[in-house]
């Protein structure tokens, strides 16, 4: 395509942020290593050079302090973009996130708004062990008062970032390291897509049909969407037409799109890199069962991270992670095709 402008998610995020910073002087960025270094995961690269130290601030290693500060600034008319370097670190600062940022709008009856974006990296697969590889989607999505998004490709990454920056509410923006486009982490090629130069929004709370199909619905988010797409490709060769739903947003959750897809296919697989129990996979299955039980031709399946901390060794970690093989096997099983293929 001639006018293709392929960007990584990292660059798409930085571009959206820069564009909003040009238009809106209240936007500023802070976090660990986000200024001079441009972010460990590249998503703030170039911002310091363009906007200077006042608006692009490296912080001490004090997540409670600076996320709490972001809330205070947001309540005071600013629009902070803060980074929690790895989502795994949420434990040192979750009070500032879930009990302060997420609730002050409600506690104040709308007296104060808390417009801010909390960016955080998720995901494993590169042997970074159990304090640097989690997704924790469910941990954030479970608690009220914050929106939660996670893009699977650069187009959505930019549009969701712009939407988040314009949202009057706190938005948790989770970017998956395996999709980020940093060479040193490997890159999912499918995440690097055409991104228009001009500013645009992807609506928070709307899922996308990443691939159409009629036999089975594969619901996922971020990296899981790519596993789903690869599985769908292989299933197509085997005569099974899988539909892949990219949630893009966990809060609000687009229950309608999920339900409509399952109403059509009658079968559901949820792919979730977060822990198996009490999380995203259970919620999606419950959502469908509550409303579309009669449509279900087979019990729903989940391919999720098992309920164990994430191990370091490659063979151990890879054993646990969702992948296309596992999805293919599950799809064949519920579609009544012999497993293995």
């Amino acid at each position, binding site marked *: 395509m001639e006018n293709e402008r392929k960007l990584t998610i990292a660059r798409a995020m930085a571009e959206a942020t820069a564009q909003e910073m040009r238009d809106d002087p209240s936007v500023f960025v802070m976090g660990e290593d986000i200024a001079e270094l441009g972010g460990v995961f590249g998503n703030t690269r170039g911002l310091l050079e363009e906007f200077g130290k006042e608006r692009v601030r490296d*912080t001490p290693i004090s997540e409670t302090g600076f996320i709490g500060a972001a809330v205070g600034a947001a309540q*005071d*008319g600013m629009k902070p973009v803060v980074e929690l370097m790895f989502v795994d670190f949420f434990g040192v600062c979750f009070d500032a996130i879930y009990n302060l940022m997420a609730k*002050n709008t*409600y*506690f104040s*009856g709308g007296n104060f708004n808390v417009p801010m974006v909390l960016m955080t990296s998720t995901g494993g697969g590169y042997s970074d062990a159990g304090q640097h590889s989690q997704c924790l989607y469910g941990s954030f999505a479970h608690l009220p008062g914050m929106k939660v998004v996670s893009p699977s490709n650069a187009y959505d990454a930019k549009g969701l970032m712009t939407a988040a920056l314009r949202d009057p509410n706190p938005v948790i923006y989770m970017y998956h390291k395996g999709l980020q486009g940093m060479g040193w982490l490997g890159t999912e090629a499918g995440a690097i897509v055409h991104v228009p130069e001009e500013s645009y929004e992807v609506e928070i709370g709307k899922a996308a049909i990443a691939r159409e199909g009629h036999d089975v619905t594969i619901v996922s988010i971020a990296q899981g969407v790519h596993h789903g797409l690869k599985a769908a490709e292989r299933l197509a060769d085997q005569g099974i037409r899988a539909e892949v739903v990219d949630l893009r947003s966990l809060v609000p959750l687009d229950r309608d799109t999920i339900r409509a897809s399952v109403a059509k296919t009658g079968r559901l697989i949820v792919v979730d890199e977060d822990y198996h129990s009490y999380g995203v996979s259970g919620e999606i299955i419950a959502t469908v069962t509550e409303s579309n039980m009669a449509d279900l031709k087979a019990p729903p399946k989940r391919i999720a991270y098992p309920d164990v901390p994430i191990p370091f060794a490659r063979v151990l970690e890879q054993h646990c992670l969702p992948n296309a093989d596992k999805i293919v096997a599950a799809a064949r099983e519920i579609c009544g095709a012999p497993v293995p293929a």
Partner: protein
Amino acid sequence: MQPAKDTLAWMYEKMVTSRRFENAIEKIYMEGKSPVFNMADGPIPGEMHLSDGQEPVAVGVCAHLNPEDVVTATHRPHHQAIAKGVDLKKMAAEIFGKATGLSGGRGGHMHIFDADVNFACSGIIAQGMGPAAGAALSRQIQGKPGVAVSFIGEGAANQGAFHEAMNLAAVWKLPMVVVVEDNAWGISVSKEASTAIQRNSDRAAAYGIPGHYIPGNDPMKIYEVAGEAIARARRGEGPTLIEVETYRLAGHFMGDAEGYRPDGEKDGLFEKDPIPAMRAKLLADGNFTEAELDALEDKAQAAVDEAIGFARESADPKPEDALTAVFA
């Protein structure tokens, strides 16, 4: 820097307003809670942390603040809210959980928010430290006037949030003042049992900023020291840490039997009640007549009566409103 007469009058009036407000709340809180004391009952359910005795800190500091300045307060916020100028009627209504309350009844006594005077509080110990630093940062970035004051208890100075926000404020030279209300107790745990040093103001050394300790729960002295600290912050010279000795004349929360207090401690405190002490001082200094002070007290009482009346008469929120205002 001694307060001018009108400031003294304001300070006294606000101290009395705060105390009379607490007296009213205390009484109403007990309605419907006998013969069995159950927090869930009565016109004001839930926990109730009264500020009796701690009024000097609130007025001594807030006498220097404008509505544009920011205050973050604690689970014991009434005196601070009143001194900061939070709408008393709407605050009372919020404490009653009424539709006319500041937050339509969603927040209650531990979640008093008034954007008009930039007041917020929280039920989590030391949680206000970060937001105060952030508000100060917001003013610094925007070049807009205003300082942020975070009030915390002495028990809160052992929380990680205290340390992180102090360092942030100091390294970024933010216009922030931290005021520690040292009432010697964090629920049943004494300062001595919880805190490795005697004076939290000495912790200023950990951040390279000024630290001041103010003994005696003395509104004049607090006024003076806070005035300097706030002026310093306004001049862009960075944060200050102040610890004030104060007294908690009520239990930690209502229903607290205070069995953990050494015998007689409470009696000693009542003798040092700062409101009669201030009245006596204002008279002794010859600045005020009895009549003037009585008039201030009457004004305070009238404001409290009006606020309580408003709260009582206001309607409950609609149950379904529980589901609104989660998002802007």
